């Protein structure tokens, strides 16, 4: 439990730094376990309040239960929910059969970029973790993106102790990653510790499968698992040799590297 409080203290510090330095902030919320923990940490940091909008980039292909859950929490926690969607791409018939990287780029990366541009956000808080996959291991807590939203991982600013890069030339914006040091197990341990409501798609409801990572319905497949509670999940994760995102089609090949260079979350 002590290690969870240490992670919490660090994330809360980062969230407060973000709020202090950026006037126009938004927090990405995909309703998955990580971004929901992130949302909970914001409530911790600001004593029950969430002083910036929650952004959901809706691809229209999300699992319906996720949308219900989103709207319920937004109501109960009085969240300022902003939903963005790349309507043009959807109108043109974009879907995963046109290529996964193409579909993610159009509906998620470009959907996010459109939202950022429309609302003029200068900082976006998101729940990526370093242990998820290779490119995320290289992230900073405060990570600048250029005018086009691109990420130059070859020349990242130094991060010294608790001092982050908080000043930028006009036109750039910043991605803030308060969960960088958390692992998948930590996320579930914290959900248990704080009793955070989560979508039951993560649990086996009798058919011997559950979702380990949630994305769009066509590109996310459940894993074989009989975990029926948070405790079961933690126990399972301690022994698994299967990667967390193995059910996520976008991670195949160099998909993630290509996506993230262009500004994917």
């Amino acid at each position, binding site marked *: 439990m002590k*290690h*969870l*409080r*240490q992670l*919490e*203290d*660090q994330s*809360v*510090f980062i969230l*407060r*730094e973000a*709020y*202090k330095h950026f006037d126009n902030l938004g927090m990405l919320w995909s309703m998955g376990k990580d971004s929901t923990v992130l949302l909970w940490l914001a*409530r*911790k*940091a*600001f*004593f*029950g*309040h969430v*002083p910036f909008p929650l952004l959901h980039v809706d691809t229209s292909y999300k699992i319906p239960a996720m949308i219900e859950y989103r709207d319920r929490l937004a109501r109960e926690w009085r969240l300022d929910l902003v939903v963005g969607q790349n309507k043009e791409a959807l109108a043109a018939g974009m879907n995963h059969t046109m290529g996964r990287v193409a579909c993610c780029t159009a509906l998620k990366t470009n959907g996010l970029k459109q939202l950022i541009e429309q609302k003029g956000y200068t900082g976006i808080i998101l729940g990526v973790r370093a*242990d*998820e*996959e*290779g*490119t995320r*291991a*290289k992230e*900073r807590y405060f990570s600048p993106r250029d005018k086009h939203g691109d990420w130059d*991982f*070859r*020349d*990242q*600013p*130094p*991060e*010294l*102790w*608790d*001092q982050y*890069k908080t*000043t*930028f*030339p006009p036109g750039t914006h910043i991605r803030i990653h308060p969960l960088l*040091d958390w*692992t998948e*197990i*930590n996320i579930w*341990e914290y959900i248990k510790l*704080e009793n955070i409501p989560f979508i039951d798609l993560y649990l086996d409801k009798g058919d011997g499968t559950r979702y380990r990572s949630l994305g769009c319905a066509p590109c996310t497949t459940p894993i074989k698992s009989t975990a029926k509670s948070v405790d079961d999940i933690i126990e399972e994760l*301690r*022994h*698994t*040799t*299967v*990667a*967390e995102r193995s059910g996520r089609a976008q991670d195949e090949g*160099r998909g*993630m*590297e290509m996506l993230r260079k262009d500004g994917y979350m």
Partner: protein
Amino acid sequence: MSTTATSTKPSENLNIVIVGHVDHGKSTLLGRLYADTGSLPDGKLEKVQAICRQQGKEFEYAFLFDAFLEEQEQGITIDTARTFFIWKGRQYIIIDAPGHKEFLKNMISGAARAEAALLLIDALEGVKEQSKKHGYLLSLLGVRQFAVVVNKMDLVGYRQDVFEGIEKEYREFLGQFKAVPAQFIPVSAKLGDNIVSRSGKMAWYTGPTVLDTLSQFKKEAARAEQPLRLAVQDVYKFDARRIIAGRIMAGRLKVGDHLVFSPSNKRANIKSVEAFNIDPPPTEGQAGQSVGVTLDEQIFVERGEVASHQEHLPLVSTAFRANVFWLGKRPLEKGRKYLLRVATKEVDCEVADIHRIIDTMDLAQQQGSGVVQKNQVAELTLRSKAPIALDLSASFESTGRFVLVDEYDIAGGGIVTEQVHDDQEFLREEARRRDFAWVKGEVGIEDRAKQYGHRAAVVVFTGGRHTGKSFLARKLEGRLVADGRHAYLLDGENLRRGLDADLSEEERGQTTEMARRYGEVARLLIDTGLIVVSTTNPFGLAYKEAVQAIRTLVHPAPVIAVHMSKTEEEPPPNTDIVLTGPTDFDAATRRIMEELKKRGVLAQAIGAKPTFQYSI
């Protein structure tokens, strides 16, 4: 990221950085650690061995690690990356810093995040330049837990005298800046001696293996036992509570504690410790925690102040000596201005002096220079625009270190080695003692501000004779009062015959005592909630000295400084408005009124997200 099932995934993490001279065996050491702890994916070892056989190369653990890394990295091996391995209930996060060109920046970013370090030295090559530089930087960055791994012992016939020679030389070097390694370990990463299992070839070594040493590194230093340091990060008023938020960097606090905020010297007691979803609510906090407290009095403090207990106050100064490492794209220059960030305080500063460039090969070397190049370490004196709270890094980690921002980038970092005495020291001490003993009435400064519709402030006019200072001061006072504000023109002449009557002719000719008395009177008027309009007329051309003394004594009330001159000249430091040549007094009055609004004196900017707050 896949891991073999030989060990289960634990909850605790420890961040480790591995540093040392290029080619001293970092990849081999890591390859060994991962292989011998069973942390590689199944079949990986056999696969790399087979490839080596095929290509007719001798198998090396470095290949194994590089292949493993490549797989994890998806080809990008440019910046600091992290890999993991698990041993005895703990997950070790290895912060790796590959790439040679930008090595130092990455090494520093990695090490600044590390809780412990391994420093590698090649037994055959001995202590090299990077061995020293990295050892020095680890110390500068505050990584106190580290072990020195003397690698490639097989190449020197496992000789004890070679190992001891390196240990002696390197200990002496580290001793110069009081760094003490946990352990010197003789190893051969290639052959696996003393990495995971004990070597049969070095019976003379009885200390722990590399893996044992990692297990012995502790999770956290005992900062909670130090005096309290809480840097104010922000002040929130989302609901009825006014919460001072920040991270406790050292020590502990609890409900009822009397806090002193530096450099403003404001004080109040902790009424509550606030938290979300903790039942029952906490009543105390300690080092490492991000907390929020409410106070029993509505004093206004802002980000950047450091709360402590009265018995152990931080230093307050505008100048200090420091050791700095520079990573900036352009060199650090004497006389240039940078943004200084200490804990949560941000303030403009100037490089007053570059004493020497530190030659990490030989720390005794003196090397003067007007600039500090990228990747160099130097001893500097920095001078900040406003007083800041800080500590010597030898006593406090978090308030004893800082970064320098050049334009938009963090371009350097350093530690405070010495306070530099400035000319305001005595007045600052007087103000501190006086504020601590200040007897308050029932009406607080905030009550007055609410009644008056403005906060207290000083508007001070500087400049030579016959520049229109008095005229403008009168005009401003008139305008403020006509607007319904409470303003008062404090003319130094009125002190001369009364309060200053006991001063000798000689003392009256000097600025020091006259300015001190003037400043203390202004301080009293500030406490009544007035906007004090003042000219520096009685001080003649010594206005620079006088205005500095007034600033120190009325601190932290806002001082709006207006400089007037007939021709262009350099105004005193921190001047807000410069009026040169014939003055349009109406326009000048408007400008000052605007400045008062901007600084939050006339318009109260308190809401969900306060931007400017102060009081006395």
